[in-house]
């Protein structure tokens, strides 16, 4: 029941040619001369975890912002489940089923854990006039919220204000809040940053569980062991461009990637 992938509302038949969940075509995003994302082509398949890695300033988070709609690309096209979403604002993309977490956790600090989840559950309703009158604390809604809180293992903290939670729980909360929107694509931006080993293991358990529910995930991460273990496929970005793509072991042995990460003394970088 829980975490079914969300059926497309528009009812349009899915484009047959496009079997991918998400495809980016030559996406570019520039900030005053700085090419943060410089022509990235990328696709994401059904039930796949795609790891997105790259050194500092490679444009990973920018790319995620472009996909989730917080930034509009300067050029290129983004197609989500057969639908061109390039110019849709972020809240409409969220309603279509693109959910995300943030690198710097952004909980709603003055709301309790349960209320944070409820905000996510209301995703489809938000914006309509009727949302101003509808009770969000009906039994069945609270029940759904409780299921998600149990899934992320925060039940003991249900009624706490999130501003008082430690970082490890905030990351889980963010994931839970994103799951509450019943996403059909989940974007995770450095979920393991700042976590200790045990927390990280719990987190990767959670990510696996989500994948088993059939939700495709794009994962940005710096902790290599974490991303290498989880991902089915990895895309490496460097200075806004894609420099490698493939299975974790392929990418780890790619000379170009090693060079970018470890550097080579006196060597020439390919760019």
């Amino acid at each position, binding site marked *: 029941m829980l975490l079914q992938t969300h059926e497309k509302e528009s009812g349009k038949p899915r484009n047959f040619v496009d079997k991918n969940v998400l495809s980016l075509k030559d996406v570019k995003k520039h900030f005053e001369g700085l090419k943060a994302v410089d022509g990235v082509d990328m696709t994401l398949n059904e039930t796949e975890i795609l790891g997105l890695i790259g*050194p*500092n*300033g490679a444009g990973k988070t920018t790319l995620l912002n472009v996909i989730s709609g917080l930034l509009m690309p300067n050029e290129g096209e983004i197609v989500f489940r057969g639908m061109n979403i390039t110019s849709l604002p972020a809240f409409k993309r969220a309603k279509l089923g693109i959910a995300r977490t943030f690198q710097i956790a952004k909980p709603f600090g003055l709301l309790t854990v349960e209320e944070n989840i409820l905000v996510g559950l209301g995703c489809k309703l938000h914006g309509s006039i009727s949302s101003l009158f509808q009770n969000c604390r009906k039994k069945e809604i609270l029940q759904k919220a409780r299921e998600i809180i149990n899934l992320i293992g925060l039940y003991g903290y249900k009624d706490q204000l999130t501003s*008082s939670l*430690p*970082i490890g729980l905030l990351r889980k909360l963010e994931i839970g809040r994103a799951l509450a929107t019943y996403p059909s694509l989940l974007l995770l931006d*450095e979920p393991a*940053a*700042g*976590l*200790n080993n045990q927390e990280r293991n719990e987190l990767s358990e959670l990510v696996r569980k989500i994948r088993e529910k059939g939700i495709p995930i794009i994962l940005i991460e*710096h*902790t*290599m*062991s*974490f*991303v*290498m*273990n989880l991902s089915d496929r990895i895309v490496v970005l460097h200075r806004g461009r894609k420099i490698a793509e493939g299975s974790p*072991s392929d990418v*780890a*042995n790619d000379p170009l*990637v*090693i060079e970018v*990460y*470890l*550097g*080579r*003394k*006196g*060597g*020439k*970088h390919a*760019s």
Partner: protein
Amino acid sequence: MLLNLQDVEIAYGRIKVLWGISLCVGEGEIVSLVGANGAGKSTLIKGIMGIVPLRKGCINFLGHDISKKHPWERAKMGIAYIPEGGRVFPDLTVEDNLKLIASLCKNELNVRKRLDMIYSLFPVLRERLNQKAGTLSGGERQMLAIGRALMSKPKLLLVDEVSMGLMPKLVSSVFETLKALKDSGISMLLTEQNVSEALAISDRGYVLENGRITLSGNSEELLENEQVKTSFLGI
């Protein structure tokens, strides 16, 4: 020991970033601090400079405990900071950027001498004296940032991600410069993502992972170490 950190802990608000960091930098030594993004390298550098307050622990510099001192007091004791990404004062001219530091020390003659030294080190800067620093290219800005730090005649240089966003050719020349500076007797603590390049010029290194020091040792040892490779690529 020039610089000695004991059990340093740093947190942003409620979020802890660094746990029990102890490290030291000796006279005339280059020590590098390597680790993945988000490991807390920059935070540690800022903590040593005094821009970020410590939660716990103490910092010893030249035998004085400086952990309660303001950043400008630390600067006057001889610590200089080269921030990430060539941060300079964009609306001041190149010359003003350099002179600003000089204005803090008294001797006018010394200022001239040091300016000449920096111009000979970075001839490009002499050509752009009256240009606003914000109009410089990334590499030139990085040189200016190094030049600025050298103006105060520091005993210890804190270098944060000097290679980030630089052309590969520039990266090696910047590292050459750092090496030359070391030979003139300046100690350095540098953070790098570019592991092998950093370890190649440094004497010792520390590996920082998720806010903790997991490995330390001589540069050669670290370069050979399998664990370094795994913690960066996770093979």
